[in-house]
């Protein structure tokens, strides 16, 4: 990054941070956390005579991260833009059902298209309600969640449809040791990273989340940006639904709700250093957040921690992480105000 330096009259101040220096940045912090949780887990498990870093275990951790990863990546897009999506869990459930039923009657391609179309439609609806009717995103997407839930409970009582073996490859196959689904996550995360970091849309998402009024005054079409972010989010959720359908071999009304992907995804995003208010953070951090949760889960499982206590620990970790992010950074503190 070469920037034209200031003139000789004003030497650059050493304290001013630029895009290049990221010390104290939550994104760097969360990956450090992934590393330290892994090392800690390895030590604790090794002390009990186990082996944490086996290929099987690492692969399991990755595999277990895929569904939450896909949802959380989508969630990052809306949260960055200053919105939120609480309808993801029910959309996943409905997505698996639509996928499995369509696959049973039609073809795999039709099913994929159907699920993505359904997701895009739900995202569009969420976005339009938030921007057009100016309903707070929390309430708007909670409402969508209720509507989807009502639809599901009215039409399904248990698993439905059947996923052909050809599509289950997505859930179970591996390339070498790496599950195919991890590539799906990588591709989706890469795409969202690319959109947020390299395109104008992405810049406008950060701007809208950072200060909607300022963005609007700068000529950013903030409403359209929020709507598109919601569509991106829902498409990621659709991908998660397809993956889960492949794993389950059928559609299930509880596919998204049992694992509480709505709140878990928000936790992962926040753990990854994205500001809940929007405008700061990104996909890289979110993936770190997802991994921290997955590694913790794995450690707890290996140590056979009581599942209730496990949740207590997860809660403590999330709160502690956000408390650390909330601490004022030193560079900002050193500058006196008038």
């Amino acid at each position: 990054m070469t920037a034209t330096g200031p003139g000789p009259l004003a030497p650059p101040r050493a304290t001013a941070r630029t895009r290049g220096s990221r010390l104290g940045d939550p994104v760097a912090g969360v990956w450090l956390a992934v590393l330290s949780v892994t090392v800690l887990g390895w030590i604790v498990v090794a002390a009990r005579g186990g082996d944490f870093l086996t290929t099987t275990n690492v692969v399991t951790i990755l595999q277990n991260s895929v569904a939450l990863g896909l949802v959380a990546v989508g969630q990052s897009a809306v949260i960055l833009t200053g919105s939120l999506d609480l309808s993801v869990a029910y959309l996943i459930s409905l997505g698996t059902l639509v996928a499995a039923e369509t696959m049973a009657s039609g073809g795999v391609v039709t099913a994929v298209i159907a699920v993505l179309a359904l997701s895009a439609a739900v995202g569009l609806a969420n976005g339009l309600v938030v921007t057009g009717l100016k309903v707070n995103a929390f309430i708007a997407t909670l409402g969508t969640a209720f509507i989807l839930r009502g639809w599901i409970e009215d039409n399904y009582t248990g698993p439905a449809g059947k996923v052909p073996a050809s599509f289950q490859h997505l859930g179970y196959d591996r390339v070498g040791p790496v599950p195919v689904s991890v590539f799906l996550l990588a591709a989706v995360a890469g795409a969202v990273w690319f959109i947020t970091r390299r395109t104008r849309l992405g810049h406008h998402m950060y701007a809208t989340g950072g200060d909607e009024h300022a963005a609007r005054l700068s000529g950013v079409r903030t409403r359209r940006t929020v709507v598109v972010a919601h569509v991106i989010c829902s498409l990621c959720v659709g991908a998660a639904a397809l993956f889960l359908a492949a794993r389950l071999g059928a559609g299930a009304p509880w596919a998204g709700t049992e694992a509480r992907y709505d709140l878990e995804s928000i936790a992962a995003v926040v753990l990854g250093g994205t500001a809940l208010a929007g405008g700061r953070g990104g996909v890289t951090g979110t993936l770190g957040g997802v991994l921290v949760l997955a590694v913790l889960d794995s450690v707890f499982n290996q140590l056979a921690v009581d599942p209730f206590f496990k949740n207590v620990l997860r809660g403590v970790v999330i709160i502690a992480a956000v408390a650390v992010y909330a601490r004022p950074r030193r560079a900002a503190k050193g500058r006196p105000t008038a």
Partner: protein
Amino acid sequence: MLTMQGVSKSFMGVRVLHDVTLDLEPGEVHALVGENGAGKSTLMKILAGEHTPDTGTITIDGTAHAFTHPAQARDSGIGIIHQEFALLPYRTVAENVFLGREPVRRGLVDRRAMERRTAELLAEIDVTGITASMLVRDLPVARQQIVEIAKALASDVRVLVMDEPTAPLADHESERLAALVRRLTARGLGILYISHRLPEVFGLSRRITVLKDGRRVATLRTADTDADEVVRSMVGRELTAYYPPRARPEEIGAERLTVSGGGNDRIRDIDLTLRAGEVVGIAGLQGSGRTSLARALFGATPFTTGAMTVGGRPLRPRRPRQAIRAGIALVTEDRKTEGLALHQSVRDNALLVTRAVPPRGGPPTGREITALLERVRLQARGEDQQALYLSGGNQQKVVIAKWLAARPQVLLFDEPTRGVDVGAKAAVHTLVRELAREGLAVLIISSELPELIGMSDRILVMSEGRLVGALPAGADEESIMRLATGGRRGGQKDAA
């Protein structure tokens, strides 16, 4: 180049602008003055495409425009520097400058081009010390403003509207801004300059348009008029006794607050005495520690060293609550975020402090609050009007009322008249002097030297976190600035 013809605008039946006409020539600074609520902001927002006018036309180079989105105004060559900057603190300078019009190469944002062009823009307007890749939050206010200007220039504006651009700046920064404004007009830009500060209006403008109650009162050639005439047409009356008379020696009484050797991580070696009946002014440049001093006295960012007494008793407040109990009040410089609950009523705001910290004589009655609001000369539709809808001056009066309800002994003012119109300013000044006369100790921090000199019985100057000098009432601007900028002449401590 730009003509606004017969512009009218009403909000919910209330007419805010009435048939206003204004024109701007290339290379001209056209000043727009008027009290708060005169319609300047609305006029500006119409020009910026934030509001659509009910009637009237905007013509740029012979083409009529009807803006419905800020982007259209900008694409037609109109740029706005808002009083509250429209910047994203966590994005870089370049990202802010090109926000909404990022250069794209093969469909992707070209960061390198963005940073290069930002650097070129900054160099073009002769600005140093800002790098395209810095985060905006790391820049001081004056530099952030320059980023705003660069942002406007990046979209090839030909008309630049500046709304109170010097309000957040210290005097030497204002001079730098004035120089920048002259460089911009030399390039053929037309500048619509909104300001309460008449000296700078006279220093910069070619013409002055005065708005009053939504109507244009006059458009004057700056060379043919003077401050008196402008002020007269703004308020419709002469403002001769601009500042109330200072305290006579016998009016200055007992010590209300003393500090010796006070300091924390931003200020140090503070020796200070505030007495009943006396108005003490604190001068200093932006970043000199003035606000930090007020916040330390108030316990918001407490002193970590030194001794302090309040009302004769030793007390170094560690929390605002302690300070309030001891009778200290702080009117902060940012009333919108620190002074008021904007969505609550005038009455609720006036009760804000006493509800949290009930004063010794019991909380004020409704009648007392009404009397207080009358006393601060509040002009509002009623006590249940939301603070949000008051003009800056009236908001400030509510903040003052809120503190008076707590019956304080020591009143600290940080920028008491920032963003306050001329009429309300005089009212605030008169009120402050009245309060001192009743035996309160008053401290005023102000970036406006005339105000500081006009109001203070004694002026202390801060520089780099220390009190570097004390000057008597009526000291001239030059000696204050000499001390504030670090020329340590006459640097005696506050020995009085």
